[in-house]
């Protein structure tokens, strides 16, 4: 039967000798015996067991959990796996969040500007998906401009609009789109006051122009 010294087995599995000593202390992986001079040796069975331990470790199970699994038939319970899967999903959400924040900070540092929290195309798309039509958006801009002009400005800037675009939207909010005048003005101004990022057919990369006749 092929046997391995502790160092040889550790090397074969990409682990350190002290890890195997630790596994031995935990009762997770015992050597199959000792040589006459007291050195641990391991057989093929131990090697397979160590591979399995490694796989469970990669899947995020703790050593204690692995010991439990191996001592009760070797098959991890559904509940344990589901729990770990859920934790992994949570970690992914956390990491994605970190990634987004870091990328945002990096952009901010690089450009000296505040990064857009949501890009304007996406914002409009989500409003449309929730059932808001063009007139609804115009009414909303008017309300926003009337109630909280500074907030309106800041929100538009945060969507990544340029100062000039922001000014144009605010002007339309005060004039062409404002409540009461909307009906009369809308027919006249409809073409003029249509902003391109409200048009789902407009190119995504260029929400620059306020389309005019």
């Amino acid at each position, binding site marked *: 039967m092929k046997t391995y010294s502790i160092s040889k087995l550790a090397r074969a599995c990409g682990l350190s000798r002290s890890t195997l000593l630790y596994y031995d202390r935990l009762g997770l992986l015992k050597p199959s015996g000792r040589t006459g001079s007291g050195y641990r040796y391991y057989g093929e069975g131990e090697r397979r067991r160590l591979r399995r331990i490694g796989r469970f470790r990669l899947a995020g199970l703790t050593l204690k959990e692995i010991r439990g699994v191996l001592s009760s038939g070797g098959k991890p319970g559904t509940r344990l796996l589901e729990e770990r899967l859920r934790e992994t999903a949570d970690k992914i959400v956390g990491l994605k969040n970190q990634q987004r924040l870091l990328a945002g900070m990096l952009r901010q540092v690089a450009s000296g500007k505040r990064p857009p929290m949501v890009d304007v195309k996406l914002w409009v798309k989500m409003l449309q998906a929730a*059932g808001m039509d063009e007139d609804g958006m115009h009414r909303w801009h008017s309300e926003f401009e009337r109630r909280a002009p500074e907030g309106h400005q800041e929100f538009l800037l945060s969507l990544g609009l340029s100062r000039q675009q922001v000014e144009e939207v605010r002007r339309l909010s005060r004039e062409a789109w404002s409540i009461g005048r909307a009906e009369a003005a809308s027919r006249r101004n409809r073409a003029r006051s249509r902003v391109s990022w409200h048009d789902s057919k407009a190119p995504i990369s260029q929400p620059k122009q306020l389309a005019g006749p």
Partner: protein
Amino acid sequence: MKNHVNVEEWVAMFEAIGLDEARMHQWHKLFETRHPDAHQGFLEWLGLGWEEIDRIRAKFR
């Protein structure tokens, strides 16, 4: 930069233009399922705390 609009004002504006609660729920749900990061970004922009954001996002997941 200080954001001048809080959640209550935001909701009030949507209500003023006739967007009812069901629509707003739908909107959150779409946002959360299709663009979770942007949803988070928007809620942060509104000035909500982490716990509140987590609560809202979990509700619409």
